[in-house]
C-alpha cells in the first residue's frame, strides 16, 4: 500500500511536506524581501540584511508625499473598479446567453472570444493609440477602462458561461412557471448561484487591470491619470532610484489584491473547479 500511515518524525518530515515548504518559500522569500526592504532605512538597502536594522516608515510617507502615490492609487482604483464592474455585467449577460439561450453560432462565438483573449496586447497598442488620439481620449480614465474591458471580457465570459451551464435548467423553468420574468429569473435565481463564477471572474479581472503596465504607460502619460504600475516605474529621476520608496509603494499596491483574494478564496477555488466534476 502506498498510502500507509506514517509514524514518528516521518509524519512531519516527508517528501510532501518538504516539497510544499520549498514551494512556499520560493514564493514567499521575494515577498518577504519586498516587505522587509520597505521598512529599511536607506543605508540598509545596499547590504543584504535579512532584517532591517531599524524600522522606518519613511519610505511610506515619501511615496505618498514625495511622489503622488495617492493619486496613482486613486486612478488605479477607479480604472480597475469600473472595468471589473463593466466586465461582470457584460460577462454575465453574454455568459447567460451563450450558456443558456437558444441561438446560432455559439461555438464560433466562443472560439472567437478565446482567440481575442490570447491576442498579444502589444500588437494592438499602436492602432489603439492612434484611435484614442483621434477621438481625444488620451489621458483619461476611459482610455484604459474600455481596452481593459475588451481584453478581460472574453475570459470572464468563458468562466461565467461554464457556470451558467452548470445550473440545472429546471430551476429556470420553475422560475418561469412561478411567474418570474426573464430578468427576474436571472437576478433572483441564476445570479445567486453563479456567485462563485462572478467572484472568480471578478478577481482575475481586478488583478489584471491592477497590474497592467503597457496600455497604462502608453495611453496616459499625464501624471494625473497614471496608475500604480506606471507611477512606481517612474519614481525617481535620472541619477537616483529610490528603492525604499518603490518597495513601500509596491507593498501598498499588493494589499488590495491580497485582501480580495483572502476574502473570496473559497469562492475562487470552487469557481475554478466548477464543471470539473458533476456535483
Amino acid at each position, binding site marked *: 500500500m502506498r498510502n500507509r500511515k506514517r509514524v514518528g518524525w516521518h509524519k512531519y518530515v516527508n517528501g510532501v511536506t518538504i516539497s510544499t515548504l520549498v514551494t512556499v518559500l520560493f514564493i514567499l522569500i521575494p515577498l518577504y524581501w519586498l516587505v522587509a526592504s520597505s521598512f529599511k532605512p536607506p543605508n540598509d538597502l545596499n547590504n543584504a540584511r535579512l532584517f532591517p536594522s531599524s524600522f522606518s516608515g519613511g519610505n511610506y510617507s515619501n511615496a505618498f508625499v514625495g511622489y503622488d502615490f495617492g493619486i496613482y492609487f486613486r486612478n488605479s482604483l477607479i480604472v480597475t473598479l469600473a472595468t471589473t464592474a463593466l466586465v461582470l455585467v457584460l460577462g454575465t449577460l453574454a455568459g447567460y446567453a451563450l450558456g443558456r439561450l437558444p441561438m446560432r453560432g455559439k461555438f464560433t462565438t466562443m472560439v472567437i472570444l478565446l482567440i481575442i483573449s490570447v491576442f498579444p496586447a502589444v500588437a494592438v497598442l499602436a492602432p489603439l493609440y492612434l484611435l484614442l488620439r483621434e477621438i481625444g481620449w488620451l489621458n483619461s480614465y476611459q482610455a484604459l477602462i474600455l481596452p481593459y474591458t475588451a481584453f478581460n471580457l472574453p475570459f470572464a465570459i468563458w468562466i461565467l458561461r461554464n457556470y451558467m451551464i452548470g445550473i440545472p435548467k429546471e*430551476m429556470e423553468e420553475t422560475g418561469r*412557471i412561478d411567474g418570474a420574468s426573464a430578468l427576474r429569473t436571472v437576478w433572483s435565481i441564476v445570479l445567486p448561484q453563479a456567485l462563485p463564477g462572478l467572484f472568480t471572474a471578478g478577481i482575475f479581472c481586478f488583478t489584471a487591470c491592477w497590474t497592467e503596465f503597457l496600455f497604462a504607460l502608453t495611453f496616459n502619460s499625464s501624471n494625473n491619470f497614471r496608475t500604480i504600475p506606471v507611477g512606481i516605474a517612474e519614481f525617481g529621476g535620472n541619477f537616483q532610484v529610490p528603492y525604499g520608496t518603490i518597495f513601500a509603494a509596491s507593498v501598498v499596491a499588493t494589499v488590495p489584491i491580497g485582501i480580495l483574494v483572502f476574502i473570496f478564496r473559497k469562492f475562487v477555488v470552487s469557481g475554478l473547479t466548477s464543471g470539473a466534476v458533476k456535483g
Partner: protein
Amino acid sequence: MATVSLQNINKVYENGFHAVKDLSVDIADGEFMVLVGPSGCGKTTALRMIAGLEDITSGILRIDGKEANDETPKERDIAMVFQNYALYPHMTVAENIGFALKLRKLPKDQLNAKVKEAADILGLTDWLDRKPGQLSGGQRQRVAMGRAIVREPSVFLMDEPLSNLDAKLRVQMRAEVQRIQRRIGVATVYVTHDQIEAMTMGDRVTVLRSGVLQQVDTPQNLYDNPDNVFVAAFIGSPAQNLYDAALTEGARSLKLGSQEILLPEAVRTKRPALASYAGKDVVVGMRPEHLPAAKPGETGPTLVGDVNLIEALGSELVVHFTIDAHRVIAEGALDKDEAEAVGAGEGVARVEAKTPVKVGDRMTFAIDIEDMQFFDTQTGLAIRG
C-alpha cells in the same frame, strides 16, 4: 380547479424527431392521471407541453375549457414538480415555498401564513429556516411539493418526482403524494416510467409508447383488459407471460409449443371473436398469479414447465420456468436487461409459499383459463367480444 384536455397533440422537434403523435386525453377536475411508458415514449414531452415549457407543434390544449396553446406557463396557472426538485439552493425552505407568492406581490403576513399552512400539510414546519442542501432527499421532495401546492394552482404537473428517492422512501412518498393530491383536489398529471407507481397512484393511467397513445383506463382495467400486447406486457410485475400459440380447428384447443391446452366452452362464449382465429396463430397471455400449482388429480387445463429459479417472497413463491413455446417480447415493454434475461420459453408463476418445489423439477401449473388473454399476432390488438 380545472380540467385539462389534449386534442390531437403533436410534437415534432426541429431535428425532425416526432416525439408525441396525435395524443388525445381528457383529464377531469380533481383527477389523478398518470402518464406511463418506457423511457423515450414522449410522456415527459407531453407534460412539458401542458406546462408551456415546450411548444405544441399541432393540436389543441385546453385548460379549464380555454385554449392554452399560446399561453405562457404563468398564465396557465399550473404548478410543476421536477424530477430533480429544482429547489433554489440559495434560498431557505420558507423562501423556496414562498417564491411564487412573492412574485405575485402577496402581502408579507398572508405569504407567511400560506407558507406555514403548506409546511404544516407537508410536515416541514421545523425545517423552514434550513437551506435545501441541509435536507434529506425525502424532505427536498416535500419542499418541491410545497412550492407547488402553496400557489393553489388549477393543475398540478409532476415529472417523475419520486425517482430520485430510495425504494423504501418511494413507497412512503407514493402514499403521501396521493394523500396531498386528494386533499387539495386539483387535477394532476403525473409522469412516471414505473408501472407500479402508475398502478398504485392513478385514478386513470395513460400508457404511451414511442409517442403513441396505447390505452387510457383505470389501473384495474388496464391490468385485466389490456388493449394490446404492449400494454399487457408493460403493466404488471412480474410481467405477464406472453407466448406464440396456435388455435386448433374450431378453437377448441390451443397448441402452446408441444403442449395442447383445451379451451372450455366458457372461454369461447366470453370471446366469440376467437372463432374467427380457429386454425390460426395467436398470442396468449397468462398473468403469473393465474398459474397456481396444480392439485393432485387436477382436471382443468394445465401447463407443464421446467423450474429453473425460485424466488421465495415469504408470502408466495415466484417460480421461473421454461416451456418449449416462443416467448413474445413486446418491444420497449421491458427494459433491455430485463428483455435479455427473459429466455426463449421463459415464464413466471406465482404459487403458494408452501408449495413443495425445487429447481430442476418439472412442475404442473393449473391455468385459470378464463383469465387468459388473447391477442392478434399481426396487429398485437386484443381479441375480444
